């Protein structure tokens, strides 16, 4: 139970951070470019992590399903935060 709350807390943190970045991009045109840079960099990092999964997995000491679940959760939280801010929060 506490582990579920811990993982959920990490997920919620990712959502809020992504949402915050999206909101910052929405309030000023200068920050809009920064927002895209942040999103592109995180997307590139995720793609890199997906491509180098075996070596990164050894570094993080996770099993293969856990590693992919982690990647999927990060991608989903970033997407959820950004899309929610874009659709209802902007």
């Amino acid at each position, binding site marked *: 139970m*506490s*582990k579920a*709350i*811990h993982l*959920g*807390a*990490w997920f*919620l*943190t990712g*959502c*809020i*951070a992504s*949402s*915050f970045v999206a*909101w910052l991009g929405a*309030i000023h045109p200068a920050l809009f470019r920064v927002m895209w840079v942040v999103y592109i960099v995180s997307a590139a990092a995720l793609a890199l992590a997906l491509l180098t999964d075996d070596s990164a997995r050894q570094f993080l000491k996770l099993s293969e399903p856990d590693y992919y679940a982690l990647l999927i959760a990060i991608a989903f939280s970033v997407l959820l935060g950004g899309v*929610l*801010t874009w659709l*209802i*929060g902007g």
Partner: protein
Amino acid sequence: MADRWLKTNCLLAGTAAFWLSALSPLPKIAKGICYSFALVASVQLVQESRRLMVQEFRRTALKVTNDHLEDVEIALHTQQQAEALYEIYGATPTYPPEVRDELTKSLEHLYREESADYTDETSTSTSQKKSLYLAVKSLLEARGETYVIENVLRLGGGQWSKGKARLYEILEEGERNGW
């Protein structure tokens, strides 16, 4: 200090509430405040839930260790009791040797006694023999010899002569004792 579970749940609820209020249509300054509070609360929530995990793990480990210790204690206690009982009853005999020999002898005597071979006359008591004699005598007068041998002594058929001898034995014994 508040319970750690309560703290974690409050932080979770606060984080969700701040995030949702930041998403709702508010002025920009309020949204900024809500976002910063939500971020702070979520970081606090991560730390607190990690502490909660560690605490639960520690509690489980402690419980397992305590259970194991308890089992070991019970096993030691049982072993000590068994040793004490063995010291009392096991190696040294409870009775002195002469008493023990006597008891063994009497036990052997008891189970070697051939009580099954004894006839009815010796095993039955005098009063039983007397009542049998009286019953046989009255039945002889009333129903006759055949009835007594077949139904009282149960020696009819092929054992007729044996039954007759037994009947005369009973009658003779009764007359001799004057019942």
